[in-house]
């Protein structure tokens, strides 16, 4: 029974990991952009949530909307006026620049918020749970977070496959060079992709803030989980990303069940196993 409990907790955790992964995968998919500061953006969103709810006293639901809007706007502007400048045939400049950005963000957060670890309280939600029997009890908050993650992924999927913007993003992912021949402005499209990714990052950051303690250095570990979920699931497939997140989440909770110290290690082992056995991920993109 404890194992079933661990499994279910892992699945719920996987939703959050899938959100971590989705933004990373989206930016890489559309413009081959590897964002090393991805985890730090998630943490920035967590601090934004904390600031708006705890300091400015904003209603949590309004807070989520606020963080999404701020992050999305910053994503658009940052891509359009900074990151687009380092985009090119070479994949290295974006890595270097976002690596620098990661260090800057961590230090800025440290300066503003100190090294104390924080958390956004969720009141009665924190303890509410649904008991299936004596051992298996699922927290209401993790369930809601999982549902939120599913909703965000479904929205992304819908945007990608049922809107003109999604069509343009997929075309850009295929062959960015000729998209201008169809009237698309690459700089604008790249910025829109980052805007979408940043919106997802915002939700991920808010959920992180409600789920665990975080501090200014929490980003790189989140980046690692995001990478692992993307690789496990296979690039360029939103539901594959969800599966990747779930596999990683389950591996971690099972590991933690064996020994709390094994949580992160078990996730890495699952990642390595997939890398060795199915290097293209569990659900590789079928076309292209």
């Amino acid at each position, binding site marked *: 029974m404890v194992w079933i409990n661990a499994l279910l907790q892992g699945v719920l955790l996987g939703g959050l990991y899938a959100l971590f992964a989705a933004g990373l995968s989206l930016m890489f998919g559309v413009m081959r952009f590897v964002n090393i500061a991805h985890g730090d953006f998630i943490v920035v969103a967590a601090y934004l949530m904390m600031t708006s709810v705890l300091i400015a006293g904003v209603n949590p639901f309004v807070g989520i909307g606020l963080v999404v809007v701020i992050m999305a706007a910053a994503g658009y502007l940052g891509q359009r006026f900074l990151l687009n400048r380092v985009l090119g045939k070479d994949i290295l400049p974006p890595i270097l620049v976002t690596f620098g950005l990661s260090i800057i963000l961590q230090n800025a957060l440290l300066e503003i918020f100190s090294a104390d670890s924080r958390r956004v309280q969720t009141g009665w939600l924190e303890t509410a749970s649904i008991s299936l029997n004596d051992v298996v009890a699922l927290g209401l908050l993790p369930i809601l977070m999982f549902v939120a993650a599913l909703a965000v992924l479904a929205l992304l999927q819908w945007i990608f496959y049922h809107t003109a913007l999604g069509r343009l993003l997929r*075309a850009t992912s295929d062959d960015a060079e*000729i998209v201008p021949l169809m009237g698309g*402005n690459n700089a604008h499209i790249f910025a829109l992709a980052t805007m979408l990714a940043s919106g997802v990052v915002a939700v991920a950051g808010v959920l992180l803030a409600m789920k665990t303690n975080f501090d200014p250095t929490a980003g790189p570990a989140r980046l690692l989980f995001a990478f692992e979920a993307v690789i496990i699931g296979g690039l360029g497939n939103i539901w594959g990303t969800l599966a990747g997140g779930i596999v990683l989440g389950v591996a971690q909770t099972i590991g933690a069940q064996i020994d709390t110290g094994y949580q992160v290690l078990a996730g890495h082992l699952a990642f390595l196993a997939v890398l060795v056995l199915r290097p293209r991920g569990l659900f590789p993109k079928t*076309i292209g």
Partner: protein
Amino acid sequence: MTQPLLEVRGLTAFYGDFQALFEIGFSVAEDETVAIIGANGAGKSTFLRVLTGLHASVGQDIVFSGSQIAGISADRVHKRGIAMVPEGRRLFPSLSVEENLLIGASGGRDGPWTLDAVYDLFPDLTSKRRNPGTALSGGQQQMVAIGRALMSNPKLLLCDEISLGLAPKIIKDIYAAVPRIHDLGTSIVVVEQDVGQALAVADRIYCFQEGRVSLTGTPETLTRADIAKAYFGIDEEEAA
């Protein structure tokens, strides 16, 4: 003579230090179909890429519809009314046939070319509209590439080697579309290595050779010997 739709003077192009085009003069009148012929590496594709803004055109002299378009980005050139069928078709593999067509209309103008009009021009595509573009035969892919360019209702359509790698019967089908496109008010430039095809379809011919215009004229006035010399840079008699 009225003002041409497109007028290019003294155009040059470089890849790094390598000069690919030298002092190209070129024009297309309203309603005209112009063919560019020339051997591999003559600079035909480069020329089209400069016209569309895909290759840097800063400082060139390219007047389209009465205004200077040199140095303008490719997406804005497209909005002015120039569309291109790129070399090698370049369909988007993760998009269906219909999505490939729709994306061509993104920044375009209104006009006679709609999804229905394209399916009417190329009926073969109708049953394939949900298929991925890359699941089609070469000829059908070329039809999608042409349809995609038409969807923006361009004033000028540039076609880069639309017959390349296709069977003669398919080439005939594809070229049958050219007069119909023309009749709906689009001027056309075709780049073609098949000289016979070029002579058959064009009102006027330019021959490129090593980055220069080596010959221009109408199909009626050009002799085979002229073309062979302009194409290969040698006299046919010498070659024989």
